């Protein structure tokens, strides 16, 4: 049933004197005063003492992991269709410490959530250990890590772009500050000083002495919401290729192309695969290159087959085309004796001339340039072997965005001295 009562009738589960209960009541009061119903409110809770809040709110709730509630809340907020719903994320200082990245990311994007930080300066559920938000004055009393300052989550959130960031230290300001935070269109964060009577102080004034000053910051921003776009099937953009030419390939041919990054090797391999398709063949293609794609070797394997290809590996390639040192150095240890090797003239040396394979040298780089050499060599192979029609390659190139240059590379093969 939809109602304007946010707080449930469940008894507060906190230790006697704990500050968390006051913060919970203030959240409910702020929401009620702003007119939110229980079905408009989504509480996202973390782990720790602050994570006990779910049953206290008679609202929607989602209880996640330690430190992750702000990220979970971002997902909820972006996933909601109705922007009038309010996502309130509650976590402690320990949660902020673990999930600092999530808070900054939510602030950076100015996602429409309100993050309530219940800072009791310590991890209450595990025995009172200090957190990243424990103040130095507090740590001085414990003679522990006194030289390590706390994260100022309020300033960090502000610097990251939060629409509203504040610290509240006086109980009588809680509801008003929360109303300001909740009313902000975008990311808001309020850090509260919360008394832990079990592990820190028995009295509120003792806590206030060690706590940072109250403050409020604003960034005038509009929130980032989920972008929705209508998209079209990617399959519609794929070019339909039907058989137009004949091929002499019986069963299967495997071709390896090897060169340098940026040398058009992958592009030539793709053109070879589609040339096969224009010739009525099934084809596969895969590339291999270093993770740094702009340098070093570039290798591509193409299989052309009269039947659909299942296994796409290439144990013994029929033809290996190598147009640069990078390609040769990568591949030379793995030359199979039955492969025909087509090499650029620049690779003529003792090593290549002593190969037992059938070897052909061509001046591909000089004739077609570095970027056209692989394609020129390919054109040579297609023409010389007669395995496919050179017109099928030209057809394949014709719809390419650099078709003019590529056709020149093919023609270069026809004039080059082999």
């Amino acid at each position: 049933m939809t109602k304007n009562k946010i707080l449930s009738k469940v008894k507060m589960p906190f230790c006697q004197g704990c500050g968390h209960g006051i913060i919970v009541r203030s959240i409910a009061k702020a929401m009620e005063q702003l007119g939110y119903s229980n079905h408009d409110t989504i509480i996202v809770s973390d782990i720790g003492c602050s994570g006990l809040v779910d049953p206290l709110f008679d609202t929607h709730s989602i209880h996640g992991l330690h430190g992750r509630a702000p990220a979970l809340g971002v997902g909820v907020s972006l996933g909601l269709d109705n922007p009038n719903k309010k996502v309130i994320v509650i976590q402690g200082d320990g949660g902020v410490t673990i999930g600092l990245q999530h808070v900054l990311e939510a602030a950076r994007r100015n996602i429409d959530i309100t993050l309530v930080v219940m800072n009791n300066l310590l991890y209450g559920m595990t025995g009172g250990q200090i957190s990243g938000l424990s103040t130095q004055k507090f740590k001085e009393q414990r003679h522990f890590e006194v030289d390590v300052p706390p994260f100022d989550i309020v300033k960090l959130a502000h610097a990251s772009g939060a629409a509203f960031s504040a610290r509240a230290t006086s109980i009588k300001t809680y509801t008003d500050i929360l109303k300001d935070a909740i009313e902000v269109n975008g990311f808001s964060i309020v850090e509260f000083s919360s008394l832990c009577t079990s592990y820190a102080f028995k009295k509120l004034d003792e806590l206030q002495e060690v706590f940072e000053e109250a403050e409020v910051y604003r960034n005038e921003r509009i929130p980032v919401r989920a972008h929705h776009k209508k998209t079209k099937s990617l399959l519609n953009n794929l070019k339909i290729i039907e058989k137009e030419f004949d091929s002499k390939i019986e069963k299967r041919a495997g071709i390896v192309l090897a060169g340098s990054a940026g040398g058009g090797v992958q592009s030539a391999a793709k053109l070879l695969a589609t040339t096969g398709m224009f010739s009525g063949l099934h084809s596969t293609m895969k590339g291999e290159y270093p993770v740094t794609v702009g340098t070093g070797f570039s290798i591509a394997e193409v299989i052309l087959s009269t039947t659909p290809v299942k296994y796409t590996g290439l144990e013994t390639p029929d033809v290996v085309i190598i147009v640069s040192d990078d390609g040769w150095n990568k591949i030379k240890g793995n030359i199979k004796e039955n492969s025909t090797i087509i090499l650029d003239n620049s690779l003529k040396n003792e090593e290549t001339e002593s190969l037992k394979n059938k070897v052909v040298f061509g001046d591909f780089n000089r004739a077609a340039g570095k970027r056209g050499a692989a394609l020129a060599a390919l054109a040579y192979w297609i023409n010389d072997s007669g395995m496919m029609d050179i017109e099928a390659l030209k057809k394949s190139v014709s719809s390419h965005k650099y078709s003019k240059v590529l056709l020149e590379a093919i023609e270069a093969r026809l004039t080059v001295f082999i």
Partner: protein
Amino acid sequence: MVFTDASMLITEACVKAGADVFIGYPITPSNRFYQYGTQRFPSFLAGPDEITVMQWMAGYSAAGKFPVSATAFPGLALMTEGLNMAYAMELPMLLILTQRLGPSTGSATTGAQGDLMFANGAISGHYPIPVFSHSEFEDSWDMTYEAIKTAIKFRTPVILLTSKELVMTNKSFDLSQLKEIKPVEKFSTKVEEPYKPYKTGKEMVPPYIPLGNDKYQVRVNASTHNDAGLIKKNDPESMANTRRLKEKFEKRIDEITFYDFDDQEGADKLIVTYGISADAARDAITELRDSGEKIALLIVKTMIPIPPKVMEIMDRFDSVIFVEENIGGIYKEIIYGKNAPIKVSTVNKIGSLISPSEIVKAVK
């Protein structure tokens, strides 16, 4: 015919099945999913890290939107915390896991089949997270659809297990071979009153109703919880709820049992494989039969939970050969443990694809 890759088919199948948002963090060899995701998904978000990605996905799912992400093992390692959370919360989502050579960062651009054991044990307490695998292009399409249907039907994250060579190899393909995919109906239409977020009937899956709706108060919880979705430990209702996470799959396993079984009359040998190695096994089986061998082939697609039907098939044969691109045979170990019967043998390799000739040699 068109020239395409399985990353594109899987992306397309996701959107056709009704996936709403792709939340990505770039990693090789899942890069193409990220690239296609930006072009095709109705919404796309660039997460700052994989931990955040999984949290955002869970938030979206709790709010009623179907999220998809794609990663590799290093990303999965970070996501596992959130995957456990989403599993306990019972939130539908799809995670595409592109396997690459490990351990650790290993070789980003070398394929592998090394992550099944991790996926099998990803949920604390050994609750099964559905793991589906695919090999051929038609399979990538169909299994993506089944993965999304399963995620919604069982309110669970599902892993689509793939590998570099499966999703980064282009092939000529006839698109007319693909079956029609219709958007999967997400939300429960039948809700038992009074509504309790985790109360279930005999289907053993709670109704899927989004956070923030105006009719029902929804409570989602990752900690041990009762039917109301509130933390309650050492309580019979909460324990039943926890046990149900396993039982819902066990009782309804037939609904998510997928495999291809190519039997041959008189065969006493069986090749068992999945994913990328299935391609080589299909070639090997043709060669073996041509040479007079009597042999059957089982390509498993429901990896986790293990369907009883799959084990029944293995039990029927005198010799069972597991073909997997890893050391020692991970799937074999999941099925038979460390003490496999003598009839079980393996063909394994790392660093490159297992070839049909290696399988043929091992069988003969």
